[in-house]
């Protein structure tokens, strides 16, 4: 407990110094010219207002749900595709070129087409978010499986592993560091894609929807609240996943 008190707040506080200085500077700059930039106090009032009305909670929950549904579909498919391409060369030869070409299209670029096919709504958004989680998971899993060392596969052969055993006990665990790197990227990409699609489609609820509505209503204070919440949530999700990654890779000699 003492150790925690001694170390943790100091470390966390170091990360808060720069934001605090920015807020101070912001307060000092904007107290004179309220029209062009909302001062911290106004943003604080907007936060209280949004919390009280429940709008912020509703938007946050819809965004989180959308992001996680997209991630839950896209990341496992990406890992499966990447692993399959890494293990079976014919799969790589058949699907590889198509997938590598498709991933050159920025995710937002799919929105108009998907909108035409599936209509502007939840389906389209989840597909685009899923795709943005799919590609980084696929690329990293593929690389992870492809670079598994021959000497470990020899051991599997000596122990008479069948294909399923080879995948489960050698290829997947050996590829795990890169698979998890892929999922870390997928988290970031799907978070960006979620806010992006919400901003562009602007339907229902969500943090992106709230941003575009605030723009229409010229509510600078609301916009800043939503941006801060988006940033904080993204940061938090990433931190949680980092912990998970560390515990999954505890067998590595140097996991920081």
């Amino acid at each position: 407990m003492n150790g925690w008190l001694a170390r943790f707040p100091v470390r966390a506080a170091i990360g808060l110094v720069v934001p605090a200085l920015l807020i101070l500077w912001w307060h000092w700059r904007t107290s004179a010219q309220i029209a062009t930039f909302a001062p911290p106090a106004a943003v604080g009032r907007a936060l209280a207002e949004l919390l009280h009305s429940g709008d912020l909670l509703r938007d946050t929950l819809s965004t989180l749900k959308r992001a996680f549904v997209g991630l839950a579909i896209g990341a496992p498919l990406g890992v499966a595709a990447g692993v399959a391409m890494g293990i079976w060369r014919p799969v790589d030869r058949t699907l590889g070129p198509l997938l590598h070409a498709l991933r050159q299209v920025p995710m937002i670029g799919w929105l108009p087409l998907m909108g035409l096919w599936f209509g502007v709504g939840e389906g389209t958004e989840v597909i685009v978010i899923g795709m943005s989680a799919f590609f980084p998971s696929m690329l990293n899993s593929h690389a992870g499986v492809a670079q598994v060392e021959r000497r470990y596969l020899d051991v599997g052969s000596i122990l008479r592993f069948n294909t399923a055993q080879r995948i489960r006990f050698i290829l997947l665990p050996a590829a795990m560091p890169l698979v998890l790197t892929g999922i870390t990227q997928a988290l970031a990409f799907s978070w960006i894609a979620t806010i992006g699609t919400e901003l562009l489609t602007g339907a229902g609820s969500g943090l992106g929807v709230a941003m575009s509505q605030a723009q229409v209503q010229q509510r600078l204070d609301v916009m800043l609240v939503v941006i801060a919440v988006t940033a904080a949530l993204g940061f938090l999700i990433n931190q949680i996943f980092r912990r998970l990654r560390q515990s999954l890779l505890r067998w590595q000699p140097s996991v920081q």
Partner: protein
Amino acid sequence: MSPYPHAREDRPPTAASRGALTISDLDKSFQIGGQARRILDNINLDVRPGEFVSIVGASGCGKSTLLRLIVGLDTDYSGELRLDGERIATTSLDRGIVFQDHRLFPWMTLEQNIELALLNTDTPKARRARIVADHIALVNLTGFEKAYPHQLSGGMAQRAAIARALVTEPRLLLLDEPLGALDALTRVHVQNELQRIWMTQRSTMVMVTHDVEEALYLGDRVIVMSPNPGRIRHIVEVDLPHPRDRRSPLLHRLKDEILAELTSGADAEEARDNLVHLPSREVR
């Protein structure tokens, strides 16, 4: 009565009925730069059940290739390789191997690594934990069951690899320079362990090494090979019971003989070719 309670002579005859390796007219070539290069040339060797055979030779004499063929990782050869009369066509749980690098899976604990070797055996699940614990005890690693390979020292990891290779009770255990990466002190320690394990376990063992002293200390016979292409040059019988005394005059005499053999004639030329020639300096 033998002075050594665990000496080979005291073994019941049943233990000696399996693990006979027969190598006849074995040739092996690799394609290097579009040309076939002969690596092993006309190898003939019979290893008796329960025997410990050491193979020494200069680098490039094909001794590691020979083990890869026996274990079944490479099946492209001509001639005959048989274990107890059965032709070797692929890998088998009857043939275990320990490499110079321990090759434990880094993502599993010591215990999980050893238990994984039992995956495709018909050992009942209920007995596996007990067998794994016994083999960890056999290599003196009790207490390190939950350690990951990176938490073990080189000697410990190598002993763990020996336990993994033995847990399936192979009829033949191959050792490919198993102690080559260890420091001198650890090496002597693991050599003693290996001798004790061999006397307890009673499987046939074939060890490749570049350390003549190690080969003589452990082997019932030492096969001396010559390179380019790899041939059996000489077979030395080491007529001493186990456990052996390192100070034995016989071991020292044999060591001098084998070293002289390895550093003379064609091998010595080979060794000279491998030397880096520095420009000689004029003495003023």
